[in-house]
């Protein structure tokens, strides 16, 4: 078998194993929380009888393991189950919200990834001169400020004072594509500012590392311009570490947007998850958790595979 197929299939198998482990962990943690869905629905003043009845009805009095494997059996068949508190089908409720979250993450990625790599290349080209220092200073500043603060500051100055974009990122199906884009402009900017520094710094470090090598000296002695040396000879060998950090940040864009969604009242996965954690609605939390885990594992696996493919020794064995 070609070594790449073998490596990729190993990674895939490992990914599924990890996903299984993540689901068990999430289930265990929600079990460990004090209180349950029945308690949350009925509130502090509930009588023990009412609680017992509701638990019976919700199926909460059965052993944890049984409930876990029932749920797992459903997942394998593509059934995410029903919400305990509002009896709605989870897959249906998540569907549109996941779409919204991915829409936001996608546009944030489209803006931030090329920008980060370009700034990283620029920083290498003007290493230790003012453009490098300016880029580092600005990106490190934006990563250091909490994203909700950046969010509110942008809402106040850009949306309220300048009236440029909508302060609320509400979107629905009746909006046109451009209206949607206009609506998510501010959260996209906030997310970009948050993830930029990490990717930019990694690009810069990975390329600088490669710049020390003898083949870069060879390229310089061919009379190539600095930019040609960087993008033709240094960049292809720095792809693996850069892709790794890009994927980590993409995963953050999907999974870590909770705060930003709340600030801009964006109808995505983050708000949905936060709501149902307070209600102890385990099936919903589990479903969201597993989807987030799958996205995280999937993106990191892609990073791994790209890193493997970027290695010519594996692509072209002797």
């Amino acid at each position: 078998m070609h070594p790449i197929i073998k490596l990729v299939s190993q990674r895939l198998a490992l990914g599924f194993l990890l996903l299984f482990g993540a689901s068990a962990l999430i289930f265990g943690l929600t079990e460990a929380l004090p209180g349950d869905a029945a308690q949350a629905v009925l509130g502090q003043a509930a009588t023990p009888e009412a609680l017992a009845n509701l638990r019976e009805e919700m199926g909460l009095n059965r052993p944890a393991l049984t409930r876990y494997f029932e749920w797992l059996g459903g997942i394998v068949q593509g059934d995410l189950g029903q919400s305990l508190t509002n009896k709605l089908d989870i897959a249906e409720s998540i569907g549109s919200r996941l779409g919204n979250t991915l829409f936001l993450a996608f546009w944030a990625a489209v803006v931030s990834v090329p920008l980060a790599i370009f700034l990283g290349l620029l920083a290498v080209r003007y290493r230790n001169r003012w453009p490098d220092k300016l880029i580092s200073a600005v990106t490190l500043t934006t990563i250091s400020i909490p994203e909700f603060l950046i969010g509110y500051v942008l809402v106040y100055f850009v949306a309220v004072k300048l009236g440029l974009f909508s302060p609320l990122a509400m979107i629905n199906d009746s909006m046109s594509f451009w209206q949607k884009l206009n609506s998510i402009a501010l959260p996209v900017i906030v997310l970009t500012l948050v993830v930029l520094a990490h990717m930019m710094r990694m690009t810069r470090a990975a390329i600088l590392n490669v710049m020390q090598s003898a083949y870069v000296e060879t390229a310089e002695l061919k009379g190539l311009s600095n930019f040609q040396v960087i993008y033709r000879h240094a960049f292809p060998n720095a792809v693996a570490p850069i892709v790794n950090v890009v994927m980590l940040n993409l995963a953050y864009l999907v999974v870590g947007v909770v705060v930003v969604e709340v600030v801009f009242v964006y109808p995505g996965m983050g708000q949905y998850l936060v709501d149902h954690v307070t209600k102890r609605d385990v099936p919903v939390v589990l479903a969201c958790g597993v989807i987030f885990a799958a996205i995280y594992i999937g993106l990191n696996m892609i990073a791994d595979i790209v890193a493997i493919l970027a290695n010519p020794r594996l692509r072209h064995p002797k």
Partner: protein
Amino acid sequence: MTEALLKVRDLKIGATVYPPGEKPHDIEIVHGVSFDLAPGKVLGLIGESGAGKSTIGLASMAYGRGGVEITGGEVWVNGRDILKTSHGDIRKLRGGEVTYVSQSAAASFNPAKKIMDQVVEAAVEQKKFSRKEAEGRARELFAKLGLPDPDNIGERYPHQVSGGQLQRCMTALALCPEPDLVVFDEPTTALDVTTQIDVLMAIKEAIADTGVAALYITHDLAVVAQVSDDIMVLRMGNTVEYGNTDQIINNPQEEYTQALVSVRSIEHEEKKPTPDPVLSVDGITARYKGLNFDVLHNVNVELHPGQTLAVVGESGSGKSTLARVITGLLPPRDGEITFSGRKLSGDLKGRTREDLRELQMIYQMADVAMNPRQTVGTIIGRPLEFYFNMRGAEKRKRIIELLDEIELGEKFMDRYPAELSGGQKQRVCIARSLAAKPKMIICDEVTSALDPLVADGILKLLLDLQKIEDVAYLFITHDLATVRAISDSIAVMYQGRVVRYGPKSQVLSPPFDDYTDLLLSSVPEMHLGWLEEVVAHRKMESAGN
């Protein structure tokens, strides 16, 4: 004389150094060097490490490696001073008029790109040829340089060809843009001798065919004598002697040049074998974990007390593996080792402290074989404590004795490895192994990383110490000159087998087997025309077969 292609006048080069614990400061590493190179001629720059020869070579492309900067003088290429010309003009110079061949082609080729893309890049970028013309030219050069399958080898990636082939590809890369001058920086140093001779001949013919001028940088005078018209001998950034090749080799004026020419002339009379060998290796077969083939096949050798057995072979011949088996780092699959009359356990764990003490080892890289945070006294004192339980004044006295034996003396006791030169570091390693009072020392390429004159000093020291301490050496090397200088018996290894074994006089006298013949005839000799003689001789032989 025609107008010089390269004219260097009073070239001064400096660098900023960052010594630990001191403020960074500027030093000068080349102190005013001048020379001329006419079109189509070859100038050899020769010297030991730190002589500034590579730095001068790169200065002809207005390039400073790392923090190196050209601080003064003039470098004229094709009638203009390139130290004063524009940035754009320097880019036209590099890769267009002057090209560079580095010591390690393996590191100098971009691993992520095909060989062809890299070979034609400069020619296309400098608009000397179209991509198609350049590729045609590259294929011609591949053929001229004797590369296999010249039409398709460019489609491979660097890791898919051998080291010797890659070095030839690098030469093609340098010649492809039709430069006026090529800087060859130790192009054959990293190669095995039998490969070196082919690459050397390929380079020499390519230079003759294309009429390009060359700066040929090396530490090996015998090599440079084969390819250059003139030679400049450099030492610590100064010109020692500058003249034509014939004069430098046959009639050197300066003492330093004379020493370089007469290097490798240690005479050592062979000792007769004794009835009781200190080490006998019987039928050793070994392989590494995870490999499904043997790296050593049925190796049988003996070493007699107070004598030297040289194990010689090229990279991959199994000579270092043999050392690992003897030291117990790699348990053999078959065979046994007898050491000073007792059978040694194949595994390191099964060996006694006495076994460990009597069998010491010295390594190629002296600087990584010592703890940089310990003083020389601590390093040499450690085996004294460990094996003999020596303390205080007694230990100190013995350390000083050992330091005297390695010709360094008491004042070195409190120095750290970083304060020593390469040769001094190796001497400290020798003292450390002698401190254990061993019966035998395995010397693994101990002189390979050293400059020729320093290496000579180490070999002389080892021979002197052998007389005093009556210690036996198992001397692993790829260098036949070293073998001649130090051994009493020789084992020639090839692909994991001992192909020739016996007393020195017998191994080095005809009739030879094919491999030993090839190996012996590949060692560069210090006389003009040696390369042509060998190549002509080989052509005749292969025609005869």
